[in-house]
């Protein structure tokens, strides 16, 4: 009886640890292949010719067209800088600098990667379309409510994620001592 109990216990532990850890490694992945900068997550190995096994698993799960190493890097944020999930009922302020890049685009998508920009507007913001402060810093308002200045107008409800794609960037490439500072995402107000 005791033997059976111990056997069941160890099998339960093996299954939980084995599959739980695998699931974690391929979704959050912070300890395995992903890099986080504030609320932003990127998989810097995703565009390399020989990705590590975790990144390879991540690539398979996404089945998307990854950016090559020299093409750029994609950052995704599902939370604001205070670790609260991003919700379409609220408006947010994206402020700061991005690492050196030729240009970047910003878009909002839901969990299945459907674009959430309001109908009739541009589905993504591009770095050449925004107004900056005199010191090069930028502020972008994100949300469904009308905001002044740069505004990424969204529609719908529920949770969303922000995708910031840097093209031709030095971020996390290891070449330059590049400042890998990413913009912060601050909650403004909720309806």
């Amino acid at each position, binding site marked *: 009886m005791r033997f059976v109990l111990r056997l069941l216990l*160890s099998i339960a532990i093996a299954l939980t640890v084995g599959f739980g850890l695998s699931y974690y490694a391929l979704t959050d992945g912070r300890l395995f292949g992903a890099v986080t900068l504030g609320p932003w997550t990127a998989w810097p190995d995703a565009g390399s010719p020989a990705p590590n096994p975790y990144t390879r*698993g991540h*690539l398979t799960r996404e*089945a998307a*067209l990854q950016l090559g190493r*020299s093409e750029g890097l994609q950052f995704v944020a599902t939370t604001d800088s205070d670790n609260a999930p991003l919700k379409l009922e609220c408006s947010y302020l994206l402020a700061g600098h991005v690492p050196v890049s030729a240009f970047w685009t910003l878009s909002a998508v839901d969990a299945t*990667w459907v674009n959430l920009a309001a109908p009739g507007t541009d589905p993504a913001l591009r770095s*050449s379309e925004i107004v900056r402060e005199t010191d090069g810093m930028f502020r972008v308002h994100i949300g469904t409510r009308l905001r002044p200045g740069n505004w990424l107008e969204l529609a719908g409800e529920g949770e969303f994620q922000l995708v910031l794609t840097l093209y*031709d960037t030095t971020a996390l490439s290891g070449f330059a001592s590049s400042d890998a500072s990413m913009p912060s995402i601050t909650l403004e107000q909720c309806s």
Partner: protein
Amino acid sequence: MTRTLLWLIGGLLLGGVIHIVAILTLPLLAEETTWSRISAFKAENRMLVLDRVTQGTPNPLRLDPELSYGVCEIDLSNGPAYLSGVLPDAFWSVAVYDQNGVVIYSTTNRDGIGQTVELGIFNAAQTRLLAQQQIDIADGLLIVEAPTNQLFVLVRLSAPHEAMRSRFEQELSEINCGPRT
């Protein structure tokens, strides 16, 4: 007590084994992959411009709405493949993917290529012939050595303004892709 502890450690070790096996076999077991999504476009040896991403429509390949994408599937078993043409004066990049969706080569036009795309993709045997000068190639051709025969090429093109995009996509679709005829 010690015996229970041993069983626990055994469970943890077995969990580690399951984890490693799961991670390593996942790419082999997946049914819907980047490759299956790309081959659904039937873009063998021609440059196909993908539809633009719009609000509210599914985007399984996670394309950037601001960019235009041209995709072309190539098979090196019939000989080396070439990509040649002229692209507009804007940011563009070329990436070569293998069947696992891994980028085996990528470059951008900021690396000093200018507007002309001249890319030759060779497998290992063809690269050897190339080194022995048994394949004639034009000067200035960018040479990519591919580990496998089944590949696809993706060109990303960024039109600085929406108004230019149709013309840019037209130029993108005129890129030649495939074996030299």
